[in-house]
């Protein structure tokens, strides 16, 4: 019994220690934002990388998500003659949940993995040490721009995903299910509240930060050559994905739970 409790305690302590290390890493990196120098070039480059180059994949996933949502809710709701709710269901699910979550997961796979691999390679080839010897703080030069890029560009991406997702629902609704276009659009913003979109954007900012933090953290602490970098990449994607789903629940509960 004692041994069993000790094991649980050890796991719990390990969890606390890991959380502490992560918080420390994030804190140190964010603290560099309050003093010069600022590497604006690096920030811009990361924003383009995270935001702009994710547009195709995010757009594609968003449009199909909206389309399938319309199709599914139609077949479901027609069983109790509530087809009219399709537009509302699509817009609420996309803005509140699916837009941010699917964008977050796609970006975790695309950007989080790339960050972990790039920073991890820099770590195992001494490039991070080289930065230090050239009077450049790696947290300031490598990590902060990525964290900011995640934080700022994910809400923008999600806004785009929301629009494309709703448009996907509209396409299916109008051209396949035969809704009146005007009525569908009316239904779309009839029940939509500011909070629905805002909560989605807050989620997006948090998810963007999580993806970048996991990518940087695991890359920064990788060791042992190509294998270590591969492992860091896996950890970055898996931990970011899990945390996205956990925080998705927590933020939803904070906004809409009562």
């Amino acid at each position: 019994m004692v041994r069993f409790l000790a094991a649980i305690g050890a796991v719990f302590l390990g969890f606390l220690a890991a959380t502490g290390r992560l918080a420390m890493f994030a804190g140190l990196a964010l603290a560099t934002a309050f003093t010069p120098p600022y590497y604006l070039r690096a920030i811009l480059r990361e924003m383009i990388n995270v935001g702009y180059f994710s547009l195709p994949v995010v757009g594609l996933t968003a449009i199909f998500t909206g389309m399938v949502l319309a199709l599914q809710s139609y077949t479901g709701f027609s069983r109790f003659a509530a087809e009219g709710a399709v537009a509302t269901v699509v817009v609420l699910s996309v803005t509140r949940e699916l837009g941010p979550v699917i964008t977050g997961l796609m970006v975790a796979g695309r950007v989080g993995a790339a960050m972990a691999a790039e920073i991890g390679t820099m770590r195992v080839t001494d490039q991070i040490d080289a930065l230090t010897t050239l009077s450049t703080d790696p947290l300031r030069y490598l990590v902060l721009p990525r964290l900011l890029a995640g934080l700022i560009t994910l809400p923008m991406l999600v806004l785009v995903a929301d629009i494309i997702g709703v448009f996907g629902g509209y396409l299916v609704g109008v051209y396949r299910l035969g809704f009146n276009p005007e009525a569908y659009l009316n239904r779309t913003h009839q029940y939509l509240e500011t909070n629905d979109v805002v909560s989605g954007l807050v989620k997006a900012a948090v998810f963007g930060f999580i993806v970048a933090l996991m990518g940087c953290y695991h890359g920064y602490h990788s060791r042992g050559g190509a294998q270590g970098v591969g492992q860091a990449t896996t950890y970055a994607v898996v931990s970011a994905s899990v945390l996205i789903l956990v925080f998705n629940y927590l933020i939803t509960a904070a906004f809409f739970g009562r």
Partner: protein
Amino acid sequence: MSDCSAASKISVRGLRKSFGRKRVLNGVDIDCDSAESLVIIGGSGTGKSVLVKCIVGLLRPEAGSIRIDGVETVGLGRGARERLVQKFGMLFQGSALFDSLRVWENVAFGLIQGRAMERQAAKEIALAKLEAVGLGPEVGNLWPAELSGGMQKRVALARAIATEPEILFFDEPTTGLDPIMADVINELIVKCVREAGTTAVSITHDLVSARKIADRIAMLHQGRIIWQGPTPDVDHSDNPYVEQFIHGRAEGPIKMEVRAM
């Protein structure tokens, strides 16, 4: 010994460093005077790179003291560490060029990011440094991945000296270079020390290079400095370890952990 350490540029005492259970440095004592060129020799895996990384502050030793210009640097805070690092330039064993930047941006990195110099001015200095290591201006616009290993090493050397730091650390500067280019690099290091008054700590396996660039040679073995002396003395050190090393003999007190096939 310890009272003269105030005059040395670098003074290391009782330095210990382990990785997990593996003890790498086990009480290293070494000094390096201002404008002196110290060369550290020793077998592969004895911890030469680890020693230099400890001095530069990239690794944190478990015990011991490292004084630079008489100031203790072990356990220094972030701000003070940042100021101290401005004195250093380092060539890494694996070159460690930034592969997301062009060659000239690599060389100019310390000037642009570290010293906030204008890009154009920094580029001119970078091209001059590249020329000093035998690379023409056309190389400046290439990416590090497009260079041969020896060229990468020379770019890394140019990057280390670009900011004209007070103390230079060279981890195997001539490994992977042909003998003629190796000699060009040796000359360059000697020039840095003689003309610019730079203090240089180099690691090398290349005894030709060591004899050429060193004012003093120290040998690291099993976590300690087992011998040190002026360069001419390596040939009559009366130390069996040093003798074996400089003559490159498989038999002797240094046991290589290999088994006959």
